[in-house]
């Protein structure tokens, strides 16, 4: 089957994806699928979406040649897709702008979301404020601690933050809690999932709304690079920024697609968040995908310096792209990500999010092995202001 037709009618990417949820949610997901299939062909909706991306988000985001960094690494030319320049500071806003329009179209009055690093929480709270809808954001207590700046931003935007202290108190538990809220308030509530994860049709919806990133790169490459890039690089937690960048390039076999997972303290330590590198097939959050789990099928605690990648699963389409060999999945550990964070900041004056820094770290490794006539586009999925507390505390500095 052509990738363009993915997912299939059952919401599957190969064996991955699907809709593994309790019965109460199946009808809600069926309704969402139906409504989405209708609206995505609706000219009025598409115009509204495009207008919002332009005037509210500030798209298109530039494709920027990182001249000094390219010279420093000495190899392939490096281009940065500047999603960090979007309104609210990350690619996450693309998806929320689309989904809130869908929510309004479906007549929902109440918006819920999960968040890890807080970027999706901020993006959801922003669009909810703009449309005057009630908004509740679920966030693990541990993430509330390490992303306090974003917690405050979400509150200023008028949304309510609900701390989650079950399980590991991180993103996966926030998602469990959001699902529980949705099941309880399914009539009037729309759940804006922030990654290409969860039950069908979410992986598809979130991919489609983020695909604008790859579509722009496809177009911008013609003038900025003069040809298709040789390689696309993006960090992968759930995988929404990577999927958005990769999707329009999937049929272009001349372009290598590389997703970079969080290697945490190192793949060999088991303390990481790299299911595609070191996990196995399983079912969580309504989808079949690669999971960090033990032999008894319990999801295990993940580790990453970046809250946004600290997730034991990954979007099902990435699992599929890995299996068919269309995309490659590498990892960068905490230390490499921190080094990359500092290097890009000092050399280009661009401070990436710690999530993004994992992709940057891989470029640091791979660019010097490539020829000067080759090019890499790396997705700067978010800006790093939110992470200065984390970086400072690692350096032993109190702000």
């Amino acid at each position: 089957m052509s990738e363009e037709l993915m997912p299939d009618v059952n919401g599957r990417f190969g064996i991955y994806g699907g809709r593994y949820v309790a019965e109460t949610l199946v009808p809600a997901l069926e309704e969402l699928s139906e409504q989405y299939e209708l609206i995505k062909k609706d000219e009025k909706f598409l115009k509204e979406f495009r207008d919002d991306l332009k005037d509210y988000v500030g798209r298109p985001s530039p494709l920027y040649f990182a001249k000094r960094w390219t010279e420093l690494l000495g190899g392939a030319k490096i281009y940065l897709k500047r999603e960090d320049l979007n309104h609210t500071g990350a690619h996450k806003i693309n998806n929320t702008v689309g989904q809130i329009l869908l929510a309004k179209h479906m007549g929902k009055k109440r918006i819920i979301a999960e968040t890890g690093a807080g970027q999706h929480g901020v993006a959801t709270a922003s669009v909810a404020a703009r449309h005057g809808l009630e908004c509740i954001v679920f966030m693990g207590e541990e993430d509330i601690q390490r992303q306090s700046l974003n917690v405050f931003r979400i509150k200023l935007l008028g949304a309510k933050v609900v701390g989650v202290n079950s399980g590991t108190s991180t993103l996966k538990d926030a998602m469990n809690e959001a699902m529980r809220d949705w099941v309880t308030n399914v009539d009037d509530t729309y759940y804006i999932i922030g990654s290409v994860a969860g039950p069908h049709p979410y992986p598809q919806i979130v991919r489609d709304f983020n695909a604008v990133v790859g579509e722009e790169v496809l177009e911008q490459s013609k003038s900025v690079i003069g040809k298709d890039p040789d390689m696309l690089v993006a960090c992968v937690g759930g995988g929404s920024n990577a999927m958005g960048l990769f999707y329009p390039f999937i049929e272009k076999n001349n372009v290598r697609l590389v997703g970079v997972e969080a290697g945490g303290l190192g793949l060999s330590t088991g303390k990481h968040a790299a299911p595609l590198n070191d996990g196995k097939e399983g079912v969580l959050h309504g989808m079949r995908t690669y999971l960090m789990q033990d032999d008894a099928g319990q999801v295990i605690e993940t580790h990453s310096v970046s809250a946004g990648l600290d997730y034991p699963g990954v979007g099902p389409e990435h699992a599929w792209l890995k299996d068919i060999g269309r995309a490659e999945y590498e990892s960068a550990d905490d230390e490499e990500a921190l080094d990359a964070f500092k290097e890009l900041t000092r050399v280009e004056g661009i401070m990436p999010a710690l999530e993004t820094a994992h992709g940057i770290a891989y470029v640091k490794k791979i660019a010097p092995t490539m020829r000067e006539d080759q090019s890499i586009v790396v997705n700067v999925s978010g800006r790093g202001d939110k992470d200065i507390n984390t970086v400072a505390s690692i350096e032993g500095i109190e702000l």
Partner: protein
Amino acid sequence: MTSKIKEVFSNIKAENRKALITYIVSGDPDTETTIEIMNSMVRQGTDIIELGIPFSDPMAEGISIQKGHERALEKGASLSGAFELLKKFRVNDKKTPIIFMGYMNTFESLGANKFMLEAVKASLDGILIVDMPPEESSNFSIEAKKVGVDIIRLIAPTTSSTRAKKICSQCSGYVYYISVKGITGASNINADEVKAKVSELRSHTDLPIAIGFGIKDSASASSVKDVADGVVAGSVFVDLIGEGGNIIEKVESKTKELSEVLN
């Protein structure tokens, strides 16, 4: 061989009462106590026991049962452990139907083939995989059918009539009607709504219908018992286990309270 579940429901019908189905988490607070609790539940009138298989991410559970899963996992409980537990329970009780209720990922860790081999050895009667709607049943339903393990399925207030019909056709043992839009232990049960929906279900199936989620005392049990063939109570027991103290005594008295209402 007739399923034990079928037999229980036909006996209950003959006795003109409703089935009491109780839920606890396997290994909460530990294996030995779980077996003692099961025995005491049966003594006080439980007809069928749903044994929760602990999972790290029990998405459909309210806080009570979440905590039960966490307590069991801390003690090292697992699906394999639940089979061992059931084998021990079967030494003294060969007739009470036992259902394993849990989540896909733990069931798949064993795989459908191996699971059913174990199920036969331990004389397991049915499975209820919460996040396995008919569309995602894969080989669990096929393998279950081969060895005569019933597949209990959920129907929710949000389920359409057409869909309910399809679910019923792929269900055996009993149909589990979720009485509320929500998670286990919810408190907003609306008896009139439940009655209307369950009567509608009768037109799709001859299987017994059990009602669960939000049944915690004699009042909530009696509010829905007339339309049901059985009533499921879970969170209330898991809460009692979490409280500690004389767990067996507390569980016995709660089981008795519910069972009397259903007689």
